[in-house]
């Protein structure tokens, strides 16, 4: 045992020295997480504002103007241009000068006075279907609001009958609906995996490329010791990255930490192992550093997309939901969100932790086996 420790220690020192000399690697491990977290945390925002709306007001009445005013009272829509005919508005929409336009027909005011429903046409450019969907929702809300205004002018009360049910929605854990929390927790997890697999694969192939692997093989060290020594410094660095990411999230975005810190650290450790395992495994199947990195590069996007870090897994087609079960990143995302935003107890999170542990052991075992085979 003491022999093992001695050799392990010697190899680790060698790896640390090698890593310390590689300034670029250190910088690329520690800087991006901070920058990326801050940028994404601030930039990702579900609210659409200042959509450019064209108005074709054929009615030209106080009623129609009042209606347009009530629509543009919030910041969602800006009346960017007024047109005389729908044709002109269409042309502007086609030239990408507008996101949408409304057409208020000639008989708008007359219909209102007669108590008949007045028709309004709304044309939205749905090339960007996401924006289109959001703006249609806003418009419908704006209509409801304008309508309630109109009703209260005319002394009409809200039209509920006795016995009407009302709904109380209460948002737990994040009552202010702060969006960045969701993204920073997701990105934190992704960074662990992307960095882990990239760096580990680079390091594992390096010896092969420079030819020093023969020297290593001649030493009395066992493959397991070599692998452990190789991954120790990367592992420590990854844990540093995780702590750094957590600190930034808490300081900059007020991310709460409500759950167990131990669980957070433990799952981070196993995730680091899994990431390193992926990197080393891919490194052993490839001939050059370039190939290894390429393989990791292509493994990472599917891992990220199917982890639920950006959009919920329930929302994906069923086959992707099934595939995501074998995605270790998915479990890390769940645990991190569970212990930060929520206060999930251990007996709610243990299946995720167990899955993460299982994956990291399997991946690490495969990488050790492949590493020995070369």
């Amino acid at each position, binding site marked *: 045992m003491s022999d093992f420790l001695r050799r392990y220690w010697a190899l680790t020192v060698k790896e640390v020295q090698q890593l310390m000399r590689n300034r670029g690697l250190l910088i690329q491990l520690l800087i991006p997480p901070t920058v990326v977290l801050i940028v994404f945390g601030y930039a990702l*925002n579900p609210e659409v504002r200042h959509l450019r709306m064209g108005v074709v007001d054929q009615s030209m009445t106080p009623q129609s103007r009042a209606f347009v005013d009530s629509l543009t009272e919030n910041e969602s829509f800006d009346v960017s241009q007024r047109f005389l005919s729908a044709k002109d508005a269409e042309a502007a929409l086609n030239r990408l000068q507008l996101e949408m336009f409304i057409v208020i027909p000639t008989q708008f005011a007359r219909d209102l006075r007669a108590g008949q429903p007045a028709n309004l046409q709304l044309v939205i450019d749905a090339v960007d279907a996401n924006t289109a969907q959001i703006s249609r929702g806003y418009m419908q809300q704006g209509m409801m609001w304008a309508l309630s205004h109109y009703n209260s002018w005319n002394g009409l009360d809200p039209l509920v*009958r006795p016995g009407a049910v009302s709904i109380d929605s209460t948002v737990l854990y994040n009552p202010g609906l702060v969006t960045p929390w969701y993204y920073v927790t997701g990105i934190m997890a992704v960074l662990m995996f992307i960095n882990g697999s990239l760096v580990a694969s680079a390091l594992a192939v390096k010896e092969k490329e420079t030819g020093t692997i023969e020297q290593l093989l001649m030493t009395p060290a066992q493959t397991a010791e070599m692998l452990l020594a190789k991954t120790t410094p990367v592992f420590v660095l990854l844990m540093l990255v995780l702590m750094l990411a957590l600190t930034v999230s808490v300081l900059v975005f007020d991310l709460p930490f409500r759950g167990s810190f131990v669980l957070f650290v433990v799952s981070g450790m196993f995730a680091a192992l899994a990431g390193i395992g992926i990197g080393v495994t891919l490194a052993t199947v490839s001939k050059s550093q370039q190939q290894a990195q390429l393989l990791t590069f292509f493994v990472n996007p599917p891992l990220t997309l199917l982890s639920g870090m950006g959009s919920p897994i329930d929302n994906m087609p069923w086959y992707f939901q099934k595939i995501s079960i074998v995605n270790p990143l998915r479990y890390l995302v769940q645990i991190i969100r569970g212990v930060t935003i929520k*206060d999930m107890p251990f007996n709610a999170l243990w299946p995720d932790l167990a899955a993460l542990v299982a994956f990291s052991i399997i991946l690490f075992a495969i990488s050790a086996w492949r590493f020995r085979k070369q």
Partner: protein
Amino acid sequence: MKKILAQANKEWMQLRRDRLLLALGVLMPLVLLFLYGTSQSLQLRNVPVAAYDYDNSVLSRAYIETYGAAITFRLVPHDPQKSPESTLLYGDARAVLIIPANFDRDVRRGSHPRVQLLIDGTDANTGTVLKNMARSLNASFLKKNNLTQPSPVLVRLEPRLWFNPGLSNAIYFGTGALAMVLALFPALLGALSVAREYELGNIIQAYASSLSGFQWIVGKSIPYIILGFVELVICFALGMLIFDYHIPTDPSVLLVATFFYLVAGIFYGMLFGNATGTQSAAIQGVQMGAFLLALLLSGYLFPVRNIPDSFRWISYTLPATHYIVVVRNCLLRDAEWNIMLRPITALAVLSAIFFALNMLQVRKMQFKG
């Protein structure tokens, strides 16, 4: 010119020898296109909701049924021993619907019962959507059970969604996916080819030769541009099969935009290769820029318009942002030159900037060498 071609030829030979790289180059775009195009969704669906019915009457079950019928929600069973809060805490459901006791009696005798919906706010977007959804489901329950007077509809909105009337996911994400896939590979290859020269020390040979920096850069990029177009053809064929792509009436718009996009991507990658000189750092640079930034800030997932002004400039420096506009407009509305001039100009300017930066780096290096 001859020198450029010679450099291009050398690059091509190197590329051809790397079987794995070529295999990845053909296969991975297809897999990624499929993944990018189909894994994301615009509409929220199948949100697990648990219902706690403390009334257990016909009416309360009818109320729960409005949730079961909505495509947004999926009713899940829950452990009756667990409190609603812990069901939410344990993550068994993302929302909990609580119907109070005497719900049915209260409705009949004219007092106003309150139903509660507890929402898990971990995902703030979903939380907002669920809140709105609950309100409209409540309204539809009222209407169905005659608990509200039909309000006189004063203004009727007739929304028309042009170019993608069904708000189809496949069309929206499928077109964005093309941009994402074409962003990854050329940039990566460019970064690798340059970084490799530094790692192997071959760069000295390039300095020692009569090759100018300009010839070196252009020669290096040519094979990857060609490869990028091959990728475009492959991806487009797949897109025609699964995402309803069609060949636009004026394909020149898309082709020119693709050319600039590829060039910008390759030069961006070479920039990282030059700056870092190691393959792993170059790959990480591309990973951040061409994958993470492009994934989240280019308008593929979230509208660019949502990004606050102080961060939106980042989006505009990403070639993917402009290319997505071109792809979507070309494939959905057959956009012509006069409309697409702006994004294409932006792409051209970006590729010129990346090229100039490359030139600067190479010149500096050569001087040092």
